[in-house]
């Protein structure tokens, strides 16, 4: 694998993470991170939508009239989002109900349009597909990390399975209700950004 392609894949996962560095897709990452299961499905959905729409638009990139390119992008992304929603409704109804409006809102997730504008329209299909997938993964990773802490401390479970022993509850331990609410997700994402900026000194402003 050549260095460029490797960079395309690895960059969005840590160094140029869409949530922590580009600060895109914050809204949905606050909303769907109460439980690991929902976060995982949301992550997979976004990975599929960003990957496939980047691929399609990269294939079309030389035919798209410049003046209507945003509209063409919207049509393709909207199509992918509706497809994902329909498939979830048919095969994972309870999760679709839980994610409800946020699946539809993937289209407003800036990561998707951002990567298409910035990358897919100027690059060959394969790198575009990888770029889309990798950005989806970068988004998904943060979602899962946040969901891990929120589900563990908010509900005492992981993937719906209780992990905090009953003995601890009997000893007076109480689930933290604040962790369930969106503000705590914002604080958690803030902490992740803080840690990343601590490691990556070049992100710090002078």
């Amino acid at each position: 694998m050549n260095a460029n392609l490797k960079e395309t894949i690895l960059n969005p996962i840590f160094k140029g993470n869409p949530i922590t560095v580009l600060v895109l897709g914050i809204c949905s990452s606050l909303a769907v991170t109460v439980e690991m299961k929902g976060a995982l499905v949301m992550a997979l959905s976004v990975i599929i939508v960003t990957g496939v729409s980047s691929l399609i638009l990269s294939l079309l990139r030389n035919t798209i009239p410049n003046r209507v390119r945003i509209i063409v992008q919207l049509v393709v992304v909207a199509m992918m989002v509706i497809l994902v929603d329909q498939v979830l409704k048919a095969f994972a109804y309870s999760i679709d109900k839980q994610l409800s409006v946020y699946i539809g809102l993937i289209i407003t997730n800036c990561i998707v349009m951002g990567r298409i504008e910035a990358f897919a329209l100027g690059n060959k299909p394969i790198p575009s597909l990888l770029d889309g997938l990798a950005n989806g993964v970068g988004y998904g990773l943060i979602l899962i990390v946040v969901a891990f802490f929120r589900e563990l401390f908010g509900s005492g479970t992981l993937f719906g399975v209780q992990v905090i022993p009953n003995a601890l509850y009997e000893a007076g331990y109480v689930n933290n209700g604040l962790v369930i609410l969106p503000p705590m997700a914002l604080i958690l994402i803030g902490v992740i950004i803080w840690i990343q900026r601590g490691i990556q000194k070049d992100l710090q402003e002078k």
Partner: protein
Amino acid sequence: MNTNSNVYTVIYSTLIVVLVAALLAFVAMTLKPRQDANIKAETISQMLCAAQFYTKDECSAMGNDKVLEAYASNIRRAFLIDEKGDSLRALNTDVKNIELQDGLKAQNAAIRKGKSAQLPVYIFGKDGREITVIPCYGAGLWGPVWGYLAFADDAKTFVGAYFDHESETPGLGAKIKDDPDFRAQFVGKQADWASSPVFAIVKGGAAKASEIDAITGATMTSKGLGTAVNTWLEAYKPYFQKK
């Protein structure tokens, strides 16, 4: 080719939209039977929850087919009544062909306008007693709220309730569905058929047997749900008073 000419742009856009529309229509039609089956199983599991046969988690774990079987084996009869409480026709309860009254929205409009309605009554058998399950439907804060109310065979005491919503605020209004403690308040409460309102969701300290506490921080959802429950109970009043 000049991709910036007007003709090209118009043809290109039209083509893309038509292609995408055709693909989506095809997918939607292919998946429709499966989605309908999911919605039906969901509706039935909400009734089973209201009647306290299973918890919601148990229903989710059962899968669609098991939910349908559970319905068919516990239901005694299901039928539609009109707004005067007279029976219109029976609903099919055979496991292969379960018939439900789906159009709650249309019925809600009919009730509110005082037009003729077709209201479903589902009667389940449990431990030799009859549990009557009826739906309710109304407007929450952001979208519709609906649910099922289950009565013991004295036709006024609640054995349970289950509510769902389209887009109430998570953590606040969404508690009508997510908070088991809210639903549990219904158990043992009574519809007061003699008075109006028949049942109420009140702020701070439910004193009467026909009242429960609203949800803190979700005033509008609580009000909407209270109205929904009350409107539908009023509509079923003739039926229950005949019993």
